[in-house]
């Protein structure tokens, strides 16, 4: 009785990519769900370039894996197509457009040097995520921020990253079936927090 549409489509896409010899592209398909064929939502090439740049600057590869290794741009397009309401789609597009307009000289965000992208997005992020002195209505979400729409964009990108196989196996940790409960283990320099979809 469970509807496996998203997964079936993903499996089909992966198979198609393999048949096409596009093994390198599988990284980008290691995503929570690509956009359904029947969804009209797609980022155009400029928007995808912008989104890719934002995700890469926000969660760079560094010495482990980053948003691009985790397929975050494709996953985010999938979320917008398959999950987001038109209002959310518009809001997220608006936030991305706002980032695209950060450069005072009018250059698109994606065309800027990496260092400049980092400067602009960090400043934008600091202002937008500045804590608000307001009650936190969702104790399981981030604290209230001055620009909740940007905070949501960031939260979606960050969440997609930390739910990805790449991040859960190479950046933090995840064991699907631990098999036993160890109530006390030592913390070492290699200890990483356990990720996953649960609250605790």
């Amino acid at each position, binding site marked *: *009785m*469970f509807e496996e549409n998203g997964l079936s489509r993903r499996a089909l896409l992966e198979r198609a990519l393999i048949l096409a010899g596009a093994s390198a592209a599988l990284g980008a398909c290691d995503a929570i769900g690509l956009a359904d064929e029947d969804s009209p939502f797609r980022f155009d090439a400029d928007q995808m370039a912008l989104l890719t740049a934002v995700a890469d600057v926000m*969660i760079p590869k560094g010495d482990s894996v980053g948003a691009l290794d985790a397929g975050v741009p494709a996953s985010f397009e999938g979320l917008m197509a398959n999950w987001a309401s038109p209002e959310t789609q518009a809001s997220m597009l608006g936030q991305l457009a706002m980032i695209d307009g950060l450069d005072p000289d009018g250059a698109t965000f994606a065309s800027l040097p990496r260092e400049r992208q980092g400067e602009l997005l960090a400043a934008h992020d600091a202002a937008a995520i500045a804590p608000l002195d307001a009650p936190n209505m969702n104790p399981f979400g981030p604290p209230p921020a001055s620009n909740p729409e940007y905070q949501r964009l960031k939260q979606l990108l960050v969440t997609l990253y*930390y739910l990805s196989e790449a991040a859960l196996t190479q950046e933090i940790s995840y064991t699907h079936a631990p098999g036993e409960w*160890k109530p006390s283990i030592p913390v070492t320099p290699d200890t990483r927090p356990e990720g996953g979809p649960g609250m605790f």
Partner: protein
Amino acid sequence: MDFDAIVIGSGMSGGIAAKELTERGMKTLVLERGGNVERGKDTTDWMQPWQLPNGGNIPEEELAADYPVQSQCYALSSATKQFFVKDSEHPYTTPEGKPFSWIRGYHLGGRSIMWGRQSYRLAPLDFEANAKDGHGSDWPIRYDDLAPWYDHIESFIGVSGSREGLPQLPDGEFLPPFALNDAELRFKSAVEGNFPGRKVIPGRVANLSEAREQHRELGRAPCQVRSLCERGCTYGAYHSSLNSSLPAAERTGNLTLVTDAIAHSIIHDPASGKATGVRVIDANTKEATTYTAKVIFCCASTIGTAQILLNSKSEAMPRGLANSSDMVGRNIMDHLYGLLTIATFDNMPDTYYFGRRPTGFYIPRYRNLDGNDGDYLRGYGFQGSFSRNGGAGAAMALPGIGEELKERGRQLGPWTLFLAGFGEILPHPDNRVTLSETETDQWGIPLPHIDVALRENDMKLATAIQEDGRAMAEAAGGTVVTSLGNPAPPGLGIHEMGTARMGNDPATSVLNGWNQAHDVPNLFITDGAAMSSSGCVNPSLTYMALSARAADAAVSMLAEGAL
């Protein structure tokens, strides 16, 4: 007669009733209003985090249209939505400004698939409470009547827990507990040292910390410590009707199971005074069928059972079946819920844990154990846990991008306490469900109208819960970062009960001490509807113990010719 017994509902109570009846040789029909579910095929516990449709999120427009009530439940996600009703397809009404969150799933196994699995016995003081303070009807049984049936159920389903010797939380037949982690041990020491009479113990939970013979023979394996339980468990490691009771019933050869079978009403024969069968509507074709049996167990859940009884009006019983007392549908209780304290600690051991334990700790009731020590009646307990988080939550907690964000995400966060109070709600006759006289569902059954309010004593408990939660967190050295002091809407505790209460007096109660309807001797009701009071502990274990005890009694009565 088509069958010896009909059990309406395949959830927590119905599954156990079916097991106990079939094991005693009764040819038993189980009617389930929802569709079939197969362990392994329809469960989604195999999904890795990156395989969750939409990262676990249900599309926003679908969520708003189909799940406005169910979405209030923490367990609803894109991996579990098949186990929750669409509110749009199963409407009910509430008075303006008096919400009631009716969380449910219509499928084989019912809510036993998604339940929280916390399993505690009511105590002697709970069975005496109504008689003592005059609220509700006096329970017609006492703790000792039910104790052997608690033993029986705990052994069958498997409950992990520690023996503590507390009179307000009787011990049981436990599997080894899931031990407290280091922060919880420190918290335990602080709470028990600063607040004499309070205890912090491992949460008692219906997950197999070890699988014994009676579990293995049903194909159940030990808990893999995944905390994916609400998706269903391929290992069969927690108790549900799918994992335990229905397979046990099936192996007797006495079980007939019909899914997509909505119980419309129970047929009453005024000449004999007995129930003779159940009118059923096929959920898909909407064709009507009648099944007959010698004994009927109504286990359709608290609201569902009341709906069936009230919809079974006849000339002989114009207020509905078994309702000469006018108590059917009244006295709805839940537990105070949503009273949450979150605190962080910097004085705890720098250690961690491995595994996602399917429980946490429990603080049993400590108020009003010997008389009243507050300006309110009854009491409350707390469920909680300490955890150290990282990843997305830590990354999002502060401004910052790039390596700064990633570095925050890969660090173990501070020990964080989640402490949730569960308080007893008093029975009140005006907290009730009635049937609409004008609106029906797509199967022609009148819609339930649920009218429940929290009252003065309930709100006093809510205040006390939050005061105590903060005090315990701070006594252990914590900084309270969140304190949610307004209880959630009634119903969201998902412990609704009381609509066909037990009692000694047929004038003020629906069921006697054997869960047998005063008015209809071959009708037994053993789901939450039967509860005379709510206690403050999670009630499913009591529903199951009552179901097993009533099934045993019904078979004896039949054998003796008393039915």
